[in-house]
């Protein structure tokens, strides 16, 4: 019988293979991290271990740059995120006024130092832990965060060539990084790209198929070729494009917000074709439910999405934010511990 390291448990669950018990994961915002460390009387850095997390995301290593008043933090691409907000808000879009892509100072994906931290972590824990690079704001979100939301939507509607060129440039850079990460010995892919609002896609499935699908397929393909799990975080109501995502090799969909994507429908339609990551609502039950509601939501999530005992990385649907009562976090942890027995 297999001895299940967290890494094997995670890989098998994502590929719908047998596991001893379901892997779990809890991510959280910086504000919530402080609150929880205080509550559980441990250091913030110890939280992932304390929670029994199974998924380690690898970030790029580069010098962080802030605006003078510290209100904006710039990411590797030069997009400025507001530091005062607990969610993500792209406050500075460096390509907002510039459509000449040759005149933009693109980041260099071959810079040697970018993967230093990732290399170190894999060396340290790679035998036991599941590592995947964090390609949040992967493609569509990368494009609109560079251009500004309205600008990029107007581009998509009115300037085909520019839209394609911008997305191609992003894809090329991401592919260089993906291949470098693969050389380090990672276990799968993780992409973030929100295509949905609460009630439907932000742009039409036809437009998604034209602009996004072929390029996302390119980003997935190095993982598909190696038969590795490919996870995609995509918020909102994306039901219409799920079959397309399966077609280009997606193995795992996140965050499966229960108030947006019906879990029974998901399971009935994608059993064996997809695995699921998330499922416990950070929009309703965790911030607003009582302890019994939280227990019930977790049990229902497991019985609906993983009746065969695999195919689910059980987790809150998003990062825990500071409006979630600590008692509910405690109850969630107890339920998580319960499934290991």
């Amino acid at each position, binding site marked *: 019988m297999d001895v299940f390291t967290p890494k094997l448990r995670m890989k098998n669950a994502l590929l719908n293979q047998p596991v001893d018990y379901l892997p779990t994961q809890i991510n959280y915002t910086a504000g919530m991290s402080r609150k929880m460390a205080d509550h559980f009387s441990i250091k913030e850095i110890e939280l992932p271990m304390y929670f029994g997390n199974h998924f380690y995301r690898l970030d790029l290593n580069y010098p962080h740059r802030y605006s003078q008043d510290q209100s904006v933090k710039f990411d590797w691409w030069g997009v400025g995120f*507001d530091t005062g*907000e*607990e*969610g993500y*808000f792209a*406050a500075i879009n460096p390509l907002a006024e510039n459509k000449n892509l040759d005149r933009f100072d693109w980041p260099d994906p071959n810079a040697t130092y970018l993967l230093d931290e990732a290399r170190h972590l894999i060396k340290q824990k790679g035998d036991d832990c599941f590592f995947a690079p964090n390609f949040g704001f992967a493609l569509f979100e990368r494009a609109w965060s560079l251009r500004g*939301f*309205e600008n990029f*939507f*107007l581009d*998509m*509607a*009115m300037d085909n060539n520019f839209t394609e060129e911008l997305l191609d440039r992003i894809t090329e850079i991401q592919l260089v990084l993906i291949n470098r990460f693969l050389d380090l010995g990672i276990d799968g892919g993780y992409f973030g790209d929100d295509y949905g*609002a*609460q*009630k*439907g*896609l*932000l*742009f*039409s499935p036809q*437009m998604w198929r034209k602009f996004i699908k072929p390029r996302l397929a390119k980003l997935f393909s190095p993982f598909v070729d190696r038969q590795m799990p490919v996870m995609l975080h995509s918020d*909102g109501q994306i039901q219409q494009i799920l079959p397309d995502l399966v077609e280009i090799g997606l193995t795992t969909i996140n965050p499966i917000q229960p108030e947006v994507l019906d879990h029974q429908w998901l399971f009935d339609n994608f059993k064996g074709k997809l695995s699921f990551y998330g499922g416990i609502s*950070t*929009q*309703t039950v965790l*911030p*607003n439910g009582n302890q019994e509601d939280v227990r019930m939501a977790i049990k229902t999530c497991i019985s609906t999405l993983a009746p065969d005992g695999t195919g689910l990385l059980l987790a809150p649907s998003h990062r825990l*934010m*500071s*409006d979630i009562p600590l008692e509910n976090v405690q109850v969630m942890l107890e339920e998580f511990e319960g499934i290991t027995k």
Partner: protein
Amino acid sequence: MMIFNMLRETVSQEINELFNAILEGKAELAKEIIEEALINKLSPSQILNQGMIASMAEVGDRFERGEYYVPEMLIAARAMQQALSILKPHLKQSDLAAVGRVVIGTVKGDLHDIGKNLVGMLLEGAGFEIRDLGTDVSAEQFVEAVRGDEADILAMSALLTTTMPNMKSVVEALHNAGLRDRVKVIIGGAPVTESYSQEIGADGYAPDASRAVKLVKTLL
């Protein structure tokens, strides 16, 4: 009689073309059609109401039916705005009188404005006067704007569960300022629901921009 009929057909054809140009987000074409329609002595208020406001209503309906998405709505609203700048000097004061005044904003602590902007655009397209307070708007700012602008509608948005409770604070602040009965309050945003709207004593909730316009019309 025959001449009259021919004229009517030309009239409706131009209005139809304008309706379609805005629906398809063709700003330049919309402007050309308006210029031609003005030369042909079409009534500016007819151009506005039948060619433009009606077209934006259709944009909203298509959005609601899942045939239009954000990009189509944005280019239509842009065409409407540009076309209106050509037509405005020809409209009488009475044509320009807004159907109602709306103060709109995203609540304190929340910087997300996509949904709010779409609601603002469609309300503007339906003939409402919009005062957009932007994002991260405090209860005091909302109250002052409602008081100062004599707003008919206060529309609030929130994306985050952490900022959604600030909607309740605004409703309370309106009460405290003695303004609650003077203005209708509508709310929206990803975590917002009809039951939350009732819980905090708002006048209504809409799940999307098109239905927000319909909601506002029923409230006035």
